[in-house]
């Protein structure tokens, strides 16, 4: 138990250090690399919380695709961040502090973490735990919920993601194809 706490605290400290460094760094290529590390750290944190599917998505999207997309952007925009004049502004600090204080106050109303009597634990979860192996024959309960009980929901999400990917491919892919065609005709 002490070891798990040690892992939790270390990962959170890593996140804090990386976030501050990301804000201060000027080399954008380095920022992209460090952002990949941030993503992997938060994926580990999701893993500690036993949310394997979330961790997997974070690693694939955050550390994988996002890094490539940001590198693609960097190849167009250039690698150095423009230096802006830093002035101390009172109003943003005030707004952020008040929002943070309100959120901390709101945390007090939350049920204790991991409590068996939480609303999330007593609503439909017992049925999934008891019936999902019988009803769906899927060994992992989360997978059975995503792929069977909420199958249509997941199908809708996949359609949305597919459409988004198609749109991005149609927008970005066109510019890349023109030079290669010219290149191919020049080879002939």
């Amino acid at each position: 138990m002490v070891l798990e706490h040690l892992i939790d605290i270390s990962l959170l400290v890593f996140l804090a250090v990386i976030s501050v460094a990301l804000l201060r760094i000027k080399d954008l290529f380095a920022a992209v690399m460090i952002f990949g590390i941030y993503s992997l750290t938060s994926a580990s944190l999701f893993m500690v919380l036993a949310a394997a599917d979330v961790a997997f998505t974070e690693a694939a999207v955050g550390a994988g695709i996002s890094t490539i997309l940001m590198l693609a952007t960097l190849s167009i925009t250039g690698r150095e961040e423009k230096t802006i004049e830093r002035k101390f502004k009172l109003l943003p600090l005030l707004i952020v502090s008040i929002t943070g204080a309100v959120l901390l106050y709101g945390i007090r109303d939350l049920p204790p973490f991991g409590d068996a009597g939480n609303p999330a634990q007593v609503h439909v979860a017992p049925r999934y735990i008891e019936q999902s192996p019988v009803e769906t024959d899927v060994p992992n309960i989360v997978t059975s919920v995503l792929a069977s009980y909420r199958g249509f929901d997941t199908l809708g999400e996949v359609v949305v993601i597919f459409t988004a990917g198609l749109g991005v491919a149609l927008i970005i892919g066109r510019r890349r194809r023109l030079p290669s065609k010219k290149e191919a005709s020049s080879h002939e």
Partner: protein
Amino acid sequence: MIVAAALAILVAMSMAIVRALLGPTIYDRILAINLFGTKTVMLITLIAALAGRADYLDIALVYAMINFIAMIAVLKFFEYGSLGHAGSDGQGE
């Protein structure tokens, strides 16, 4: 034993972060993120051992593959400036 392994992995992770933050050249940072990905894989296997769940090991394997593919993509991008480049002799056309 498992405590020693956890401490070693966490120390290695923090050293990789330090290298990624300081790293004077691009290759230091690329190597640091690659190392950090490998350490993430090891941390997940450690969590699998701690939680007693063997199915986490599959996820560690998938992480290793993602890490490998992402690293190839980053290096290829850094070398050629695009992912569609077929190499120097244009065999992909």
